[in-house]
């Protein structure tokens, strides 16, 4: 295979498939590198093989992925599954591992469509087997038809937690309780986002239907719970929480956690993209122009990886990025790009109307993020909140200092699971925002690959300069 392409797209969720479809249909040489075995991303996972029962249960929001995937397959874009990208260079070089061998490829433009992940929020006992992401368990349903069995507790915050609850209720799953950590009384800022949300009654109707289904079931639903904890020895045995003055305790086989969704930003950080802090959602995201272009001319961000806005927005953003790249490659003139972009921008605007309301409603309020000293913060290296606080008291002020001193963020997940909470803990300890404690340096390889695999890799002639793995790290 040729090692040079017009465009490389990383990820095949709604954004990646949309970008690749637009560009592939124009006859461009597009290589799509997807870590998963089949296109769809998380939201449309396994969509090409989904049985009728899953399509019926998950509804049109899932089923429409089938059409997106079909368009993608027919677009002429080349799809490589099981491809784990471990380095992206601002000049368009991409290294990835597939079937135990690594390759370096290059493109004029690289589109990073790596999507989003569930916000990891450490609670006591969250390392116990049996504690899983609610979105992860939803993936098991899509991919393998696995339905939770036994005593199930759902806990956390956000519309996807309630969506998962309604799907499980419809499957007849025995839910012991839904423990929402969202404050019972919404933050005042929520009110000003009501008028635009009211312009999308269909969206609000969906939300109300969800809440009515939960209410209509016999599942105990607690709001505004605190002190959420998983308890057990070798595996989860019980879930505890506080509901006002009442202490709650539920025997449980599975605890499904969900605290909203954040962009997966490791590729952007590694490539040295300029990042921006969102104070409402409390996450970092790459700074982009209206087409998804980052501060690096050749690097684009598309979909939830650039900012979490859901599948419909991700698809629109993916198409917009595709149009701009086609324009940059001289395939379409700017007026054609703009004409094609207009309906996409209209869809984006309409889709965005209710979002600030929902976001504000479920925004992680700083005060509700309380971490106990003995809670494990870094799962990989077994570092507790208390150990991090201790080194901050001793003078550490930057996340990378804390990492060096405690090993927090140094394990195989490379800070994906502890990074956001680590910033909250260090920020709280220093009485400043989590955006003012630095960011963990992210270096290649982004995914575990053996040194042998790297040594055997055929390298393109990049430049005459000696290798400098850290040249893209912005401080």
């Amino acid at each position, binding site marked *: 295979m040729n090692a040079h392409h017009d465009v490389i797209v990383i990820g095949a969720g709604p954004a990646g498939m949309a970008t690749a479809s637009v560009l592939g249909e124009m006859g461009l040489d597009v290589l799509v590198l997807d870590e998963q*075995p089949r296109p769809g991303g*998380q939201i449309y996972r396994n969509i090409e093989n989904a049985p009728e029962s899953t399509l019926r249960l998950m509804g049109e929001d899932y089923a429409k992925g089938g059409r997106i995937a079909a368009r993608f397959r027919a677009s002429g874009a080349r799809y490589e599954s099981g491809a784990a990208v471990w380095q992206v260079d601002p000049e368009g070089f991409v290294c990835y591992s597939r079937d135990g061998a690594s390759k370096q490829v290059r493109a004029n433009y690289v589109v990073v469509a790596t999507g989003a992940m*569930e916000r*990891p929020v450490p609670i006591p006992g969250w*390392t116990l087997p049996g504690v*899983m992401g609610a979105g992860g368990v939803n993936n*098991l*349903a899509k991919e*393998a038809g696995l339905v939770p069995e036994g005593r199930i507790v759902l806990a956390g915050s956000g519309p996807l937690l309630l969506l998962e609850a309604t799907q499980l209720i419809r499957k007849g799953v025995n839910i012991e309780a839904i423990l929402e950590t969202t404050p019972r009384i919404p933050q005042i800022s929520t009110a000003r986002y009501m008028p635009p949300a009211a312009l999308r009654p269909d969206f609000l109707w969906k939300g109300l239907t969800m809440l009515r289904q939960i209410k209509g079931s016999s599942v105990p639903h607690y709001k505004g719970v605190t002190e959420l904890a998983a308890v057990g020895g070798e595996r989860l045995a019980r879930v505890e929480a506080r509901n006002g003055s009442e202490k709650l305790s539920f025997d449980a086989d599975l605890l499904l956690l969900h605290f909203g969704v954040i962009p997966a930003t490791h590729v952007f950080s590694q490539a040295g993209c300029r990042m921006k802090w969102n104070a409402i959602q409390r996450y970092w995201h790459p700074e982009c122009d209206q087409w998804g272009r980052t501060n690096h001319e050749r690097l684009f961000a598309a979909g939830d990886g650039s900012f979490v806005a859901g599948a419909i927005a991700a698809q629109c953003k993916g198409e917009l990025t595709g149009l701009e790249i086609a324009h940059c490659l001289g395939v379409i003139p700017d007026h054609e790009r703009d004409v094609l972009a207009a309906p996409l921008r209209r869809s984006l605007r309409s889709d965005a109307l209710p979002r600030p309301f929902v976001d504000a409603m479920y925004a992680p309020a700083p005060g509700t993020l309380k971490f106990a000293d003995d809670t494990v913060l870094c799962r990989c290296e077994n570092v507790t909140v208390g150990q991090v606080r201790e080194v901050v008291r001793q003078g550490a002020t930057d996340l990378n200092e804390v990492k060096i001193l405690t090993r927090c963020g140094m394990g195989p997940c490379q800070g994906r*699971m502890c990074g956001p909470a680590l910033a909250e803990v260090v920020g709280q300890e220093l009485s400043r925002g989590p955006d003012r404690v630095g960011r963990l340096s992210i270096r290649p390889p982004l995914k575990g690959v053996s040194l042998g695999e790297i040594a055997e890799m055929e390298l393109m002639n990049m430049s005459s300069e000696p290798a400098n793995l850290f040249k893209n790290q912005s401080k």
Partner: protein
Amino acid sequence: MFKKDESFINGTVRVTLDGHPADLPEGTSVAAALLGVGELTSRRSPSSGRKCGPHCLMGVCYECLMEIDGVKRQACMTPVAEGMVINRLLAETGEDA
């Protein structure tokens, strides 16, 4: 812990799990396949020594890292296949990951 939606029932593949032959449902990731037959433990944490189970199920957390055909891989990102040799490294004095 999990039961299977009937419309998903497909064949099985024969693998070697921790040195013993095992039949796992085909067409899914190793992590989903193991959960599907009631195996909740994915490995023993090299740092805490405690047992781990799959957590994020989307390639983020590395809690399902196991030795698959001689290489440490994320079980949730690896499709299960006939003849696979899967070692979860559950011994109490597990080697360092």
